[in-house]
């Protein structure tokens, strides 16, 4: 049974007025599935994340995870990793931070320790357990946050732009951690600004001013420059490279934005033309 948002509408109350942030949004993630959610600023992505954890109650529609509704049930099943690790770490040691969420679930201490050890090992943080998170790099801190979420054994994890505040190595680290989350069976929603993050996902969803403007194969989206522009998203880096290659005279396959396809086409080209350099 998936994490399911059914016909969700939500408006923020602003003084006397309201601002419609989500408009009849239907969305689901299965366990073990990796879904990318992209959209321009203010399109409602973070609202969707809050909604998935039950922290906002929809004006219309229903949110359920494995058939369970309500804030408490949703918080136990859905973990959220935010943008800035600075706002999500409150402890002075890594393992205390990872223990925080499970401790709140009323789990006995030795079980807490066991789960913390497992989550730290999964995120490759075992030898940092006694470090002060404030002394770690951005990527390491974000991994601490992911471990803290993972230790609560959620079925679904929503990551809201988890790499925005990080440098390139930190980004890499966190993306690898997301892959690990999928591998251990979590349904993952990766909210992102970066179209490159969409490539490894099973499905892509585009939010645009509060409604779903696209849902489907990541590569159909990434290869459609016109569509991307229409949705307020820049061309993907792969599309830019593919276009340059085409302009340079290379014949490209129909689906050049899949990295594997593009690489195969390049290899094929080199084989045919020969490894000559001008």
């Amino acid at each position, binding site marked *: 049974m998936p994490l399911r948002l059914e016909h969700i509408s939500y408006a923020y109350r602003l003084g006397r007025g309201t601002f419609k942030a989500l408009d009849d949004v239907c969305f689901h993630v299965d366990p073990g599935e990796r879904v990318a959610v992209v959209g321009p600023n203010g399109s409602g992505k973070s609202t969707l994340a809050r909604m998935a954890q039950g922290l906002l109650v929809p004006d219309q529609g229903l949110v359920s995870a494995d058939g369970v509704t309500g804030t408490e049930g949703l918080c136990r099943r859905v973990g959220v990793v935010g943008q800035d690790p*600075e706002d999500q770490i409150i402890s002075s*040691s890594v393992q205390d931070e990872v223990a925080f969420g499970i401790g709140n679930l009323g789990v006995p201490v030795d079980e807490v320790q066991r789960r913390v050890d497992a989550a730290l090992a999964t995120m490759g943080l075992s030898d940092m357990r006694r470090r002060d998170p404030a002394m770690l790099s951005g990527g390491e801190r974000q991994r601490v946050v992911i471990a803290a979420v993972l230790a609560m054994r959620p079925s679904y994890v929503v990551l809201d732009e988890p790499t925005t505040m990080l440098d390139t190595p930190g980004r890499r680290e966190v993306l690898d951690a997301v892959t690990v989350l999928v591998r251990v069976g979590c349904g993952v929603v990766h909210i992102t600004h970066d179209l490159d993050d969409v490539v490894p996902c099973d499905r892509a969803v585009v939010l645009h001013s509060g409604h779903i403007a696209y849902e489907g194969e990541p590569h159909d989206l990434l290869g459609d420059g016109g569509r991307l522009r229409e949705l307020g998203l820049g061309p993907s880096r792969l599309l830019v490279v593919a276009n340059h290659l085409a302009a340079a005279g290379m014949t490209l396959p129909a689906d050049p934005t899949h990295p594997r396809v593009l690489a195969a086409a390049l290899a094929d080209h080199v084989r045919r033309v020969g490894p000559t350099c001008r």
Partner: protein
Amino acid sequence: MMPSVAYLPGETPLHRLDARVKLALLAAYTFLLFTSDGWVGLACCLSLALFGLVVGKVPLGHALRGAGPIALLLALTVIANALSLAHPADGAAIVGSLSFTPAGMLHGMYLAVRIILLIVAAALLSLTTTPVALMDAFTALLRPLGRWNVPVGDVAMMCSIALRFIPVIADEADRIVTAQRARGARFGEGGPVARVRAWGPVLVPLLVSLFHRADALADMLDGRCFTGALRTRLDAPRMRHVDWAVLLGGCTASVLLGIYL
């Protein structure tokens, strides 16, 4: 690590002593200070304070910094005690019925030294203990209050979050100041009004960013099912044998000295 004006990083036995023990020792020392009268008791307290300074490798100047703001008060204590209106036998008349008494001055000095010693002892605690450890120690001591529905968990959480966010907020303020400077804002120039005004463009974005952080933090706490109960700690400080020994030894000594001196 918490950048703090109060903490002197170090690896001395005093730094390593459990913060709860240090807190208890401070209480015991205060007891001793105010129950022992006479110069022998004071000398005893003085040597204990000096012993603490040596063990913790804390420079005397550092420990006395806290006494600065009340130096005037201490001076007044001495002067007020030295003056008398009642023509005591050892008094030297100054004007009218006002006279100076050496015994009174000595008593004033006695009171002043007692307060200075208390300040030094408190400084010893805060200079050798990280704010986080200190917070934990307070929480541990407040824990029994939970039985009378005092929200110890909430209070502890609030204080430790406040502590943790001080450097974050300081960084943020720094960033905004730098950004405003780059746009030509001037800080610390002109009259007092101009100086205060210059901070307006800093405080507003700082507050906005703090509200955003508070929102994100609240989401995080709700998302992790925080209910205000005391948290499970894996790295909670554990009392070693030394800690117990120092605690017992220190408290017994203070009580005995307090009674016999």
